[in-house]
Every structure is written in structure tokens, then in C-alpha cells.
């Protein structure tokens, strides 16, 4: 057997209060696609940051082509042919595409004056952009292109450094299905060209499609690996969490057709030309599918009152309600679990207790002053109910794992009196174990008569969790699928149907 191009041996890394990596080994051969899986906090990203020179290992060694190397910083990593594509894109969107590709390595002229050679940048960028199948001028500002295209720019950047090893940390978490498939195809091409790819993802379907080998981490340690023929959903889950879990959708749908929340002729300011009408039935989870940019989050934000709707109404229990601000929405029992947990869902610098009490602080006051005791009691109650894993309610929200943070966001709303909860990408960046728990919680909520609208770009989730699926495209509702019609093709067909044929389509 050939020698691995890259070997990591006995890597240890400590952070304040945690051992992120404990004696981790990893090796990859040239032209191999290695999937690195594990729950959140298992240490995948940390390991890759060490490889990419962002962090330094406390112990352990790195070998490339059999020689021990030091990766002290990102420049070292680049020099060694390692390129890291981060979980959150680290692009500068005030620069153009070319500027990003050659960031920090700009070709210069003018000797000591060090002028940037724009011509050369444009010329060379074009070549790398073609390689990744992106036909856009390199002088396009990065802010003008989609997230998927930005991802491709990152890969072009990696190619331009002659990277032999490309690490992709959750590259598809913001991509739609078509874009994901394009990326997977590109990975195949890279592989054929002898580039090694380390692929990190929570989406096991993708891993199954593209990986030659799977290595799993759990709690900062190696928890096993799978050869290509052993890769299956069950085997991966077992390695990641040490047990089997079941993500099955409820078979019998018992939604109540008569009690429902109706969204009638609703117009969001983002898509003023489209009226959206649909209903959510009691006891069901209505999935809202579509490509990124289909206007789903915008619809959710409008319903929740972050922006003002331009028309239409929301009918709850036969009463039309007006929502001008999130405050109005909350008073009417309509809550949003936003897409970006750390930015909009939580105050990460506040404690779990303070986060849970925030939407309804007045309830925990006496004589206008906040009662710490009442606040804590409410938070503790939610912690028990939702099994939020935290040492106490006085821990800062930022120190919790993704899944537990999501539960805190949910706890905020459950301590009130919810009627409708809109989940926007409820399990983005959440590990498999916590995912199952969140699905279970959502199901429990519907059983208790709470309406749920779930926006999701994860096809597995949309098909697996929803009772019905509404599909949007460019701000318009393209149709609603009943359970018996569910299939990936059916969803994609609606999500990509040209808009002219189905203008103002309802169900």
C-alpha cells in the first residue's frame, strides 16, 4: 500500500475548560476523499484548524509525504499544500472575486512601491474559476454572488495555491440540493486530478455519495473508521454517537383539517409581486422547502413582524390578526426560531436563564423589579422539560453545544404560550443525536396542539419530518405536497418550475 500523503499522529489540543482533542490520529492518501464525521463538539473543526495552521496542537505530529512538518500558521499550511475552506465562509465581501482568490498573495509590480497587479489577478483568476465551473468575471464584487458561488470561489482559491489537500468544513450547510450535487461532482474531479479532500459534513447522504473512507471522532477521540463498502447511514451514526437512532416520520397523519392557521394573500416586502396563501393544520408539521433565496426566511420574518407585510392577513381561530413588530407576534403566540441562532436566536453572552426569560420578563417581576428566583425557577423548569445539557442555568449560552443552544431558543418560547412556532433551519449545525431530539420535541409540540411551520433546506429533514410540504420559489408558493406525494423529485420539480406557469399558485 502506498504511503499516506498526510499523517496526523497523537494530536492533543486543550482549550479553556475542555480537552478538544485527545490523541487523535488521521491519515489520508493522495486522490482520496476522506469524510470526517462526528457530533458537534467532537473535535472535527479543531483538528482541521490545526491542520490549516489556525490553531497549534499542544502535542502530536504532522507528517506530509513522510516528513515531519511544523504548521505554525496559515502561511505554513498554504506552503505545504493544505487549504482549509471554513465552515463559515471567510471571504471579504468588500473585495471582488479575484481579490479574494489572491488575498495576501497579490502579484505585485513597481518594485518597492508594491502596486497590486490587477491585470494578472484577473487573468489568473479566470483560469481557476473555469476549473471549478464558475463563469463569472473575476472583477465581480463578491457581495453580488450567491453563497454557493462564494463556496466555489473558495475552492478556486485553494486550487490557486496548488493545494494538494483541501479541507472542506461543512461546505454544503448553506447550499441547496442542486448546488450540493454540483459541489460533489467537483469533488470527484478534484479527486481524479490527484487532490486529496477531507470532507466534513453532518449530512450523511452526501458522505455516502462521495467518500472513499470515513473517519469518525467522538468526544475528541477517534471512534473508528469505515472503508468504502462499509459506509452506510446506520454504521456512521453508530460510530458517531455509539448507538442507533431512529429518524422515522410518523406513519399515520392525524392532523385536524378544521382547525388551522391561515396565511391569506400574504405579501412580504422582499417579493412584492407575489401573494402567498397556505394553511397550517393543527397537529401537523408543515415543511417549507425551496432553494436558498426562495423567500422562505423572508416570509417567516414578515409573519413574525421583523419587517412589515405589504398586505394579506394571518387568520388564527377565525380572527385576522395584525402584526407590526415581533412584540405583536409574540403577544399573539406566534414565535420564530430563527435561522441564525448565534446572531438572532440567542444572546450568546448572556446566561441560559437570562435568555429564557427575555421575551417575557414582566412575568418574572414584582413591583417592576426582576425576581431572580422566579426567573431561575422558570429556566430550571424548561431545562428539565427539554433536557438541556448544561451544568446550570447560569452558564453563558455561547458555551453550550449547537443542539443545546437550539433548545434554549425553543425554551424561550415554550415558557410562554405558543400557538404557532416557525422553525427556520432548526437543525443547521446540530449533530445527529440532538437532531433526533429536536424532531421529537417538535412532534410533541404538535401533539399538544401547537402549529409548526418548518423551513428546511435539508432534503432528508424535509421529507422525513414534515406531514405536508409547501414549496416556494422566488417568493411565490409553488404548491403543497401531501404525504403520499413526497419524493425528492417532486419537491425539486416544484422548487425549480419556471414561475410564469404557476403565478399565484395555491394548493
Amino acid at each position, binding site marked *: 500500500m502506498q504511503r499516506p500523503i498526510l499523517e496526523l*499522529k*497523537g494530536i*492533543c489540543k*486543550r*482549550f*479553556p*475548560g*475542555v*480537552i478538544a482533542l*485527545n*490523541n487523535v*490520529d488521521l491519515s489520508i492518501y493522495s486522490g482520496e476523499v476522506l469524510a470526517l464525521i462526528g457530533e458537534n463538539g467532537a473535535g472535527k473543526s479543531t483538528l482541521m484548524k490545526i491542520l490549516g495552521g489556525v490553531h497549534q496542537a499542544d*502535542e*502530536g*505530529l504532522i507528517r506530509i509525504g513522510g516528513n515531519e512538518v511544523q504548521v505554525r500558521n496559515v502561511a505554513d499550511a498554504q506552503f505545504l499544500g493544505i487549504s482549509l475552506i471554513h465552515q463559515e465562509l471567510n471571504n471579504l465581501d468588500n473585495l471582488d472575486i479575484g481579490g479574494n482568490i489572491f488575498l495576501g498573495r497579490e502579484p505585485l509590480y513597481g518594485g518597492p512601491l508594491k502596486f497590486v497587479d490587477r491585470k494578472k489577478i484577473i487573468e489568473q483568476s479566470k483560469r481557476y474559476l473555469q476549473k471549478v465551473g464558475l463563469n463569472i468575471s473575476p472583477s465581480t464584487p463578491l457581495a453580488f454572488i450567491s453563497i454557493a458561488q462564494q463556496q466555489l470561489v473558495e475552492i478556486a482559491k485553494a486550487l490557486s495555491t496548488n493545494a494538494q489537500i483541501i479541507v472542506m468544513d461543512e461546505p454544503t450547510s448553506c447550499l441547496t440540493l442542486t448546488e450540493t450535487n454540483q459541489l460533489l461532482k467537483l469533488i470527484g474531479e478534484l479527486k481524479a486530478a490527484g487532490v486529496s479532500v477531507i470532507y466534513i459534513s453532518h449530512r450523511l447522504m452526501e458522505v455516502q455519495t462521495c467518500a472513499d473512507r470515513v473517519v469518525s471522532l467522538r468526544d475528541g477521540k477517534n471512534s473508528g473508521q469505515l472503508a468504502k463498502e462499509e459506509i452506510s447511514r446506520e454504521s456512521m451514526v453508530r460510530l458517531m454517537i455509539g448507538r442507533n437512532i431512529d429518524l422515522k416520520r410518523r406513519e399515520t397523519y392525524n392532523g385536524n383539517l378544521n382547525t388551522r392557521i391561515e396565511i391569506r394573500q400574504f405579501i412580504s416586502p422582499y417579493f412584492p409581486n407575489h401573494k402567498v396563501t397556505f394553511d397550517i393544520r393543527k397537529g401537523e408539521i408543515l415543511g417549507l422547502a425551496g432553494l436558498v433565496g426562495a423567500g422562505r426566511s423572508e416570509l417567516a420574518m414578515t409573519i*413574525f413582524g*421583523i419587517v412589515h407585510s405589504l398586505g394579506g392577513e394571518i387568520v388564527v381561530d377565525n380572527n385576522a390578526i395584525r402584526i407590526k*413588530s*415581533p*412584540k405583536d*407576534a*409574540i403577544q399573539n403566540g406566534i414565535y*420564530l426560531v*430563527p435561522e441564525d441562532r448565534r*446572531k*438572532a*436566536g*440567542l*444572546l*450568546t*453572552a*448572556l446566561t441560559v436563564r*437570562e435568555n429564557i426569560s*427575555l*421575551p417575557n*420578563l*414582566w412575568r418574572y*417581576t414584582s413591583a*417592576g*423589579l*426582576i425576581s431572580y428566583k422566579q426567573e431561575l425557577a422558570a429556566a430550571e423548569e424548561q431545562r428539565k422539560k427539554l433536557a438541556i445539557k448544561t451544568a446550570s442555568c447560569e452558564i453563558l449560552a455561547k458555551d453550550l453545544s449547537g443542539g443545546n443552544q437550539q433548545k434554549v431558543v425553543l425554551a*424561550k418560547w415554550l415558557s410562554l404560550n405558543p400557538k404557532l412556532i416557525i422553525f427556520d433551519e432548526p437543525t443547521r449545525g446540530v449533530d445527529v443525536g440532538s437532531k433526533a431530539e429536536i424532531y421529537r420535541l417538535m412532534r410533541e409540540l404538535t401533539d399538544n396542539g401547537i402549529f409548526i411551520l418548518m423551513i428546511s433546506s435539508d432534503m432528508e429533514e424535509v421529507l422525513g419530518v414534515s406531514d405536508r410540504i409547501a414549496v416556494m420559489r422566488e417568493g411565490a408558493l409553488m404548491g403543497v405536497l401531501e404525504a403520499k406525494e413526497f419524493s425528492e423529485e417532486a419537491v425539486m420539480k416544484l422548487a425549480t418550475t419556471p414561475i410564469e406557469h404557476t403565478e399565484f399558485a395555491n394548493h
Partner: protein
Amino acid sequence: MRQKKEVGMVVIFLALFFGYALLEAFQRGFGATWQNPVFLGQANLLNLTRSIGIFGVFSVAMGIVIITGGIDLSIGAVFALLGVVLAYLLGSNWPWPLAVSVIMLVAMILGLVNGLLISKMQLQPFVVTLCGLLAYRGFARFLSSDQTAGFGDTTGYELLRQLATGEVFHIPAPFLIFVVVCIIMAFVLHVSVYGRYLFAIGRNEEASLYSGINTKLIITSAYVLCGFLVGISAILLAFYTNSISPASHGTFFELYAVAACVLGGCSLRGGEGSVLGIFIGTAMIQLLRNIVNLQGIDSSLEFVVMGCVIMVAVLFDQILGAQQRTRKSRIDMKQPNPAVLAARK
């Protein structure tokens, strides 16, 4: 941990305070100091506490907007403007309650303008209040034709003058006013719903909005509240100096307030700070000014000393914080790592 910071500040303040008392004893001899202390003498202590009181009230005002993630650079200029107007009104024989009402109203309206520009128009607090700094000072100079305005010995508003220069039980009135403001604001900021909202918005405005807080209203109100306290300070300061030269009255005072807040543990990123901290921060700065004065250090060096001390204090805090974090992270792991040894062989 938040509490610890303020405890540390109190310790540093006391060390500086008694340290300097001791220094004086060494410099002048223990006997002479005991007989007739300068630093610990009644006159100096009255002066010190009076200036703490006057600077403290508007430092708390600054603290409120800093906690929301903002800043108010116009405070000093507002002092000049309000001072000129107050001198004019009282000089025109307005009854003082009416004049004070006008001043407070104007102060709060200026705050409201700042607040609306920042929350509704989404302008940056630094820019908005920088414009205020320039505009209000210029306006004050224009109104007074750049002439110094004073209250002289006119009668009819002794009570007002007493608030700035008087004493109650040998404690300067401004200091008492400051303490009352602190107690009220401590409740408002640290125990009331409104205070929690302020801190929440300072930490993350978007998430606060998503939690149903009317962020624009709260931010605007913070600037109005700031304006209210600035109005009180403006009146105290006007009578404290007794004459208002529009070009220099209150210059740099907003920066004293920022310094007090920063020393007291406020973060300019917002969402952090406490009334107790601001109290100690103000006391510290006034103590420093006092010491610089008493030591006969050239007044032009006063800002050098203060700049350095604040920098050292903030640096110290940063280093201590970093140490605390690393100490937490020292968790035993087995050394040496056998896998590494094996691989090296």
C-alpha cells in the same frame, strides 16, 4: 466574575487614596501632616467629593448609552449650550423653577434627537454625537456672542446655587445628588426590566428584536435618559463654575465620562458595565486629578498622567482576565504522549 472586577477597583482606589496620604506624611513629616493635613484636610476632601459628585452624574449618563453599545460625545458641548441659556434666562429674571424646567426640557430634547437619529435613521452614535459636539458648542458661542456669561451675585435662586456649592452635614450637595442618582440607576439598570433590555440590546440588538423587545424605543429612551442626567449635571456645573465661557466650558468632559466608564468596567462594545463600577471609575479619575494638583505637577501634564494611568489599569485588567482564563484551562493530561513517542521512533 463581574463583581470581582469592581472589588479590584475599590482596592486600587483605596490603595491610591491611603498611599497618597502616606506619601504626604513622608514628604511633609508625620507631625506636620497630623497637625494640618492637606490631602486629608477638610477643604481638600470637600473639593474632591464635590467634583466626584458633579462628574459622576454625567458619567452615569454616559454609562447608560455605552451599555446600549452607543456613546455620547456631545455632553461637554451641551453643558456649554445649556449653561449659556441658563445664564441668559436667570439674567432675564425668569423664576428659577421655570428656567430649570426649560433647561431640563432642552436637555431631554437634545437626547431625543440623538436617540431618534441613532435608532430610527440607523446612524452611528459616534457620528451623530460628534456632530452634536461641534454644533452645540458653536451654537453656544453664537448665542452668547462668545462672551463669558455669569450669574454674578444675583439673588432669587439661592437654592439652585446651594445644590452645586452647598453642603449637608459636611457632605457636598453634588456628591449626595450623585449618590441618589447612583442608587436609583442601580435599580433601573440592574434589577428592572428596562435595565435588562438595555444590556440585552447592547449585547445583541438583533437577537433582542427577535425576542420581542422594541429595540428602537429602548435605544431612543436611553439617550433621553442620558439627556435628563446631563441636564442635571449642566445646572450643577454652571453654578459650580459660576461663569460660563462658551468656548471652554465643559470641554473634554465627555471624555472624562468615557474614561470613568471604561475604568469602571464598561465595554465600549456595549452590554457590559455597572453603576458601582462607574461610581468607582469617577472617584478614581477625580482622585488622580486631585493628586496631580496637590503634587504641583504642571497642569499641562495632568492629561499625560491620566492617560497613562487609565491605559495601565485597562491593560492590567486585560492581562488578569487572560490569566484567569488560562488557569481554568490547565487540566491534567497524561504526559508524555506514547503515540507521539512511538511515531517518532
